[in-house]
């Protein structure tokens, strides 16, 4: 079994997949990658199933040594990435030679990138998922972010990955495919997105001024944001003109925009809680969640309302698009 040695861990590097559904009744969040689209595309480029375990890399990346020849792909935000001084291109399969040292530096734009490896990271499933649950300290690699000296095992690569690796020509340490997943297919990352939302279950509890301000203003991302949620600051005073009553805690979802009594909204991300007692003014459309995963402190976000049916049509269209990309990638190694 091939291995990855962690020489430097980076700021916050965790093993993630597409989550562990089915345990919310015990308070266990599905979790998984915050930018699930980037994780899925990365896995497809490495010949894996979409939900294989990969590394989620935050702000400043790790330095890794690959014990054996490995096919990898980097997706998500744009990070400075090199192998022994040679730049490593993102959004395409890349063969790393045995002993290659991959250095992922700081993010140029965006906040999180994904490193998928052919065969997937072979960490044990816990409660059905391989992702790291940071708050509860289980799953992923030892239930925590990577540290120097950790050694990650890699699963057996697929037949596609083996065939495609043979087609790559280059130096001993690095050979990249000549094609990539085009810009049109990737999420449209920006530092100031307009994110589409549908009305939340407690929309009516907010006064008209708060509703208008929510859909009309830009909010700034607070430094206390993490995998659980994106904390936003409203310009001037909080979002609410009058105190809102707490509700009885109820279910929440990734993308739920909850507003605590201080009026500063929190958008829940992948490692969200399972229930919450703050009123939810809106829910972000699933197709736009990757845009939020790429925001860092100081970036801004605005919200635009669409209907539930529109949000679902956008999701269906993006799933169809991804299915086409999947077919396209499969054809590259035949």
């Amino acid at each position: 079994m091939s291995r990855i040695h962690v020489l430097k861990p980076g700021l916050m590097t965790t093993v993630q997949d597409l989550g562990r559904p089915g345990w919310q009744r015990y308070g266990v969040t599905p979790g998984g990658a915050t930018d699930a689209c980037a994780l899925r595309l990365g896995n497809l480029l490495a010949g894996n199933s979409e939900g294989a375990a990969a590394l989620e890399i935050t702000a400043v990346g790790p330095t890794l040594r690959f014990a054996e020849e490995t096919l990898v792909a980097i997706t998500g935000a744009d990070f400075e990435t090199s192998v022994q001084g040679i730049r490593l291109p993102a959004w395409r399969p890349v063969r790393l030679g045995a002993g290659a040292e991959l250095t992922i530096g700081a993010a140029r734009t965006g906040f999180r990138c994904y490193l998928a490896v052919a065969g997937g990271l072979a960490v044990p499933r816990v409660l059905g998922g391989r992702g790291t649950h940071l708050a509860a300290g289980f799953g992923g690699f030892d239930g925590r972010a990577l540290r120097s000296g950790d050694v990650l095992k890699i699963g057996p690569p697929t037949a596609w990955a083996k065939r495609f690796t043979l087609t790559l020509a280059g130096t001993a340490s690095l050979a990249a495919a000549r094609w990539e997943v085009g810009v049109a297919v990737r999420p449209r990352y920006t530092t100031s997105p307009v994110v589409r939302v549908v009305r939340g279950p407690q929309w009516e509890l907010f006064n008209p001024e708060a509703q208008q301000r929510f859909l009309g203003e830009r909010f700034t991302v607070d430094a206390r944001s993490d995998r659980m949620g994106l904390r936003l600051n409203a310009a001037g005073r909080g979002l609410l003109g009058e105190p809102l009553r707490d509700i009885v805690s109820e279910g929440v979802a990734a993308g739920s925009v909850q507003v605590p009594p201080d009026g500063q909204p929190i958008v829940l991300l992948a490692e969200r809680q399972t229930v919450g007692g703050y009123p939810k003014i809106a829910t972000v459309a699933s197709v736009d969640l990757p845009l939020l995963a790429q925001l860092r402190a100081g970036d801004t976000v605005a919200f635009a309302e669409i209907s539930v049916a529109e949000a679902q049509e956008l999701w269906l269209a993006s799933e169809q698009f991804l299915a086409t990309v999947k077919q396209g990638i499969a054809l590259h190694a035949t």
Partner: protein
Amino acid sequence: MKLAALGDSAVIVTLGETLDAATVGAGCALAAALEAKPLPGLIECAQANATVTVFYDPARVPKRGGTSPFERVCRWIVDRAPATGQVGLPSGRQVILPVCYGGEFGLDLEMVGAARGLTADEVISLHSGAEYFVSAIGFLPGFPYLRGLPERLHTPRRKTPRTRVPAGSVAIGGPQTGIYPFETPGGWNLIGCTPWRLFNAYAQAPSLLQVGDRVRFRPITSEEYGASRSS
């Protein structure tokens, strides 16, 4: 029964305006009925307090005419909802949890009392004198929401959540009491701490408590807390 969209991939079903044992029981029965015969595209049903949240993938819900996946899922939930009637709580276990109240174990104990004109001892005696039932496990793995808090102890959540609450903290949030299984951010008022572990992902039953359990708290000293913690 009231249904609302929780975004494009979930429906939140509210079973009643009051949060009592019958409403919680009805939620558990609905979640079980839905999961017993799932609609294609269903991901999971999660009961919590007076609600059941139904998660689904709109791309995998069977298409029918001009209806959206959301409308399709709503119709399915209404069709599958069992006949309303008396539904009991799904479990009847009795659990007595040790708690070390106040001081560094419960930073907000004095404040909770002061807000209602109670001494610290009165808060402890009221909180440990009541019987509670688990109406939801959620927020964090193994975090129990407990109903039955004496009215005199009802205390609103903090205006701004704390960024760090110690594991085991017993806390009051509005009309409920609960226990933080892990160190985490949190907005409830901290009154004590239990040495018991509430969640273990690697155990056969990962959550110590489950919805329907009856819970009481037993005050312990800091020495007993330390002994119980290390044992």
